[in-house]
């Protein structure tokens, strides 16, 4: 099985197969990355597509200085924030504008988690999501966020404790109230 860096080398040399292989490897992770951060599924799909376009076009400039996942999600962050800036003049859409995924086993629990995530500071939320959902290592998170490793450690702990407090607050409220508030 080729490593990510090997695939990037092949993509640099124009291998179509390497593109497809890399795409299949990271198709779902990138999609989920955007899906949790962008309320509109169509927009999330477009942004995920943009990420792969950027990766393939930038393969010639790719340097193996860190984990490929850091590189990939770094680009995903760029695409995400570029899109947010582009849409900044429009009405702000809350993160939970869409109903929870139909695949969620417990829709209420997902709503609570999403509400609780929304109460966190943006930096705390992003770093926590990178760890919990993208399952990046501390070093990869540090690379993506451009922060020191120890900062990642402390920020992650703070984010988890904040999420714990938020979840405790929300789970103590009636579900109907939570829905009505939204």
């Amino acid at each position: 099985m080729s490593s990510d860096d090997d695939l990037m080398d092949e993509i640099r040399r124009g291998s179509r197969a390497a593109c497809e292989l890399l795409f299949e490897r990271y198709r779902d992770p990138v999609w989920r990355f955007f899906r949790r951060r962008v309320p509109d599924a169509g927009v999330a799909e477009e942004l995920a597509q943009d990420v792969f376009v950027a990766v393939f076009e930038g393969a010639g400039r790719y340097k193996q200085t860190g984990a490929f996942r850091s590189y990939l999600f770094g680009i995903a962050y760029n695409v995400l924030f570029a899109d947010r800036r582009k849409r900044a003049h429009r009405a702000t859409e809350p993160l939970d504008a869409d109903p929870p995924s139909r695949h969620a086993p417990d829709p209420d629990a997902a709503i609570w988690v999403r509400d609780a995530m929304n109460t966190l500071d943006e930096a705390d939320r992003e770093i926590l999501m990178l760890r919990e959902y993208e399952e990046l290592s501390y070093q990869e998170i540090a690379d993506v966020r451009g922060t020191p490793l120890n900062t990642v450690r402390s920020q992650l702990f703070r984010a988890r404790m904040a999420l714990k407090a938020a979840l405790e607050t929300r789970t103590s409220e009636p579900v109907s109230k939570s829905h009505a508030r939204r």
Partner: protein
Amino acid sequence: MAYLDGESIPMPRDAMDAHIAACATCQAVVNQLRGVSAQAQTWRVSSAPDSLQAPARPGGRLIAWPSLKWTRSRAAMAALGSAAAVMIVIAAQTRATLRNTAVPAVALSQPADNLDSQALRSPTGEARAVQGEAVQGKSVAHGSNPVASSAVAGQLSAGDAVIQATGPSGVPRAPMVIRTATLAVVTKQFEGVRAAVEAIVSQSSGFIDHLSITGDTASARSLGATLRVPGDRMAAVLERLRQLGQVVEDTQGSEDVTDQLVDLDARLANARATEQRMADILRNRTGKLSDVLEVEREIARVRLDIERMDAEKANMNRRVSYATITLTVSEERKASIEAGPLSLGTRLRMAAADGIETGFETVFGAVLFVLRSGPVLLLCAAAGAAAWLILRRMFSRLQGSQSTASE
């Protein structure tokens, strides 16, 4: 956290497992955090839709890796801004310090183009180290901060008199006071005063800074002295000096020089550090011959400052250690005149002298009267003469008319 996430931890994982198994508090924290992660995992999203396919042909906007740094969170940007501000401040202070030390910048950065100065050439990359040293020196120079200054004094002048007034934390624990006293005494027995003063000063482990005696046996004599005695013995010395006679003046004063000494120490330490830095620069740095000479001149100037401050500090320490007593002892003398009967010749001489003096004063008074009243008298005389002439003419006419009528 790192333990839960499978990241590296600073102790063996087995040991951590054992600790958590034994520690109820850590166990509770671990369970809580695991619960949070488990709850977070309940937020699931669907798999990527089938419509999301690998791009057939690369196109669209290109976003490269280096642009990552511009899309970080606001907090990261704020941190970056703060770091930049701190760097600017540090750079400004460094520049100011380097300017104060008057080290020619060219000596630090310009490569030597003079073969004579090859011996001074140093490896590259030392400019930053010099900046660091300069910043450190600048921080030492902040004498306005009492705590910092005293801390510097505590670090750099251990063993001398100043450090005795500072505690381990650098906070002064006793004021440094210069004590002075002025004592004036009048005595009938002047002969033994000098010996008594010398004995008192000697027994108090002090010394006589200055002593002088004026006058002779025909007039009242006076002793003036400046005495230096240990500060803690000043009261006892004054008490003994008061017993020399009747005290006519007794004043005491003090001056707290704690801050001055601390500041002086800080400035001294900074000057020494500057001298050391410039010596290092001269020893290691590269530069033109003119720059080397300029550094040497600067070192000489700093050395002069150091010596001046050393002398000032020594003088101040001496004044703190020894109180100054200004003593004046005057001899008590009563004037007496023994007037006897005057002889005849003396009385005649005195009468003649009085007569001559009286005559001289009379003539002198007349002259003064003429000088003062002359102009007025002349005017009066002129007016009187004119009136006399007019009356005389009128009288002559009257007599003429009467004689004509009688005829």
